[in-house]
């Protein structure tokens, strides 16, 4: 019974080169689609490839991308968070209100907003896990509630539906260094949120592929009963995922607040689906258990490039959504084609 493990080559496998092996990663389809869209707009518009142009679409992509990566982790773990978009508004409004209206220290305000966001994320997880209701519905309820609260509370406290005078708050500029600054690189004026985006994508990828928690995320999303049976702490994993998404909402909320120095009560509404779209274009399965963080980041890149590319191309703006739809379909089809070529079944 001490047969040695057979050699890795096996007559029952067709030889597959490095390229095919690479092509099997979930994000490769998205990478090819992103490249196609990049080339398309680079060739067909003038401003797209200029430093100022690149900085614009990268920034646009980064705001979607940070959330998309978090949402992708959650989706791999088998859940949705429709309150992710509204959370961006909620956190921004909290910081805005407590600083401009009540004069709370701005750093403290950041911490308060983060704590509230994480608490809401944990509450989502708790309700989903305890009741067994689909997260789609639970977080939809959270979304509605946040949307209503954002509006009503902002109105009650400030008398208007947006935060004014944020840039006059003491310490604003110090915080702006982390969330709203930009630096020069290759002639571009790179916003700091792009750095956050890349760093988070790298971190998420490492967690997914090289840590225990990553293994568990795939497992709870792929087959929750089996995971429970082999002893994966399902509750903890889901709790962590919902809190991560809420935390990402906070981060994006801060990035937006300290960039434009204002936030409206309607901020973030309707954005939740964009995150899901980015994740799916990037190769995540809606049913959970499969996907990648890099893919989601690429999905956001595709979205950001398309959104700004259409403007650079000066197409009639009324068609915006139609173009977006077409591009979306194109991206997923390219994605599919590439993956089929690589012999991966969806």
């Amino acid at each position, binding site marked *: 019974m001490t047969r040695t493990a057979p050699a890795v080559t096996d007559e029952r496998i067709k030889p597959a080169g490095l390229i095919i092996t690479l092509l099997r990663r979930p994000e490769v389809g998205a990478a090819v689609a992103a490249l196609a869209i990049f080339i398309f707009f680079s060739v067909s*518009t*003038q*401003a797209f490839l*200029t430093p*100022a*142009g690149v900085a*614009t*679409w990268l*920034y*646009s992509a980064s*705001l*979607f991308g940070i959330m998309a990566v978090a949402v992708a982790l959650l989706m791999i773990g088998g859940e949705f968070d429709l309150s992710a*978009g509204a959370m961006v*508004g909620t956190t921004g409004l909290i910081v805005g209100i407590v600083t401009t209206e009540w004069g709370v220290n701005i750093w403290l305000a950041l911490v308060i907003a983060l704590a509230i966001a994480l608490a809401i994320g944990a509450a989502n997880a708790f309700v989903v896990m305890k009741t067994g209701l689909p997260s789609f519905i639970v977080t939809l309820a959270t979304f509605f509630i946040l949307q209503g609260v954002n*509006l009503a509370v902002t*109105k009650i406290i*400030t*008398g*208007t*539906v*947006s935060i*004014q*005078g944020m840039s006059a708050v003491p310490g604003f500029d110090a915080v702006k260094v982390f969330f709203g600054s930009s630096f020069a690189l290759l002639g571009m*004026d790179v916003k700091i949120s792009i750095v956050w985006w890349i760093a988070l994508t790298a971190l998420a990828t490492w967690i997914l592929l090289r840590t225990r928690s990553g293994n568990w995320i795939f497992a709870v999303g792929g087959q929750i009963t089996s995971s429970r049976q082999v002893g994966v702490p399902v509750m903890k994993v889901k709790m962590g995922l919902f809190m991560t998404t809420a935390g990402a909402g906070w981060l994006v909320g801060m*990035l*937006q607040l300290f*960039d*434009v*120095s*204002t*936030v*409206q*009560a*309607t*901020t*973030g*509404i*309707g*954005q939740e689906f964009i995150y899901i779209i980015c994740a799916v274009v990037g190769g995540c399965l809606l049913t959970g258990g499969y996907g990648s963080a890099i893919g989601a980041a690429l999905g956001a890149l595709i979205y950001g490039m398309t*959104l*700004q590319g259409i*403007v*650079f*191309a*000066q197409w009639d*703006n*009324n068609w*915006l*959504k139609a173009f977006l739809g077409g591009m979306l379909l194109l991206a997923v089809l390219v994605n599919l084609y590439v993956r089929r070529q690589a012999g991966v079944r969806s």
Partner: protein
Amino acid sequence: ATTDAAASGDPVTIAVVTHGSPGDTFWDVVKSGAEQAGKDLGATVTYQGDGDPVKQSQLIDAAVATHPDGLIVSMANPDGVKNAVEKAVAAGIPVITINSGLEQSREFGAQTHVGQSEFIAGQGAGEQLAAADVSNVICVIHEAGNTGLEERCKGAADTLGGSVTNVQVDVANVADAQNTIKSSLLADPSIDGVLTLNPGIAVAASQAIEEAASSAKLATFDVSSDVTQLILDGKILFAVDQQPYSQGYLPVTFLTLQARNGDVVGGGMPVYSGPGFVTKDNAEQVAKFAKNGTR
């Protein structure tokens, strides 16, 4: 219009149903005006809004079912609320129309109209921009397909004499709206004017103009304290102020008077509420009110 309700302080209920969706900056001020009037006069004011004519009609029907003493309706899409308004009139409820729908107001049986159409306000903005030597303008629509916003841009195009291109952004993502405005400016350096229709978007637009190193002049609809500050700083040329507060305040006053005193104000003629223009000269005064959410 009950006969024995002459004494002031009698319970009066006024229902307001507009086409503004909750959270819209403009309609929020209208709502504040209506509610303040209610408070001042001791009347109960209820406010509802939905941009879809079917839903707005349902809201009007629902309001009529509660038998208010007066009904205030905005008519962005007059055909859409015609039935509902006529039903209200038939039920004996006095109706005042506000904001848009001036032309149909009388036909549908409303007593008077308060405000002024978005188109005329847009025309005003166009004139002012033309006076500032601006000829190639982007008009930033922050809610796709919103009739009122489309009318404002159309009005501006009507009087500008140059070209007006509509650009769509999403008010729920102001940071990205800024990107889109920046992209437009980068794509066409000949753009020398930006007209925004929301104060939040105006702030983003001023930043976008800076980042794109463009010399385009910026004008906006509606004011907020950030906007008045930017006007004082010279970054925004002017803000069109339709004085939405009075579009809410006045009709509530009229209907309360009617319920308590039988007064029918307006004499069949519309009451204009604007537009005013906020420029460097008067921004200081307006700033004070904008902070309270009444301008």
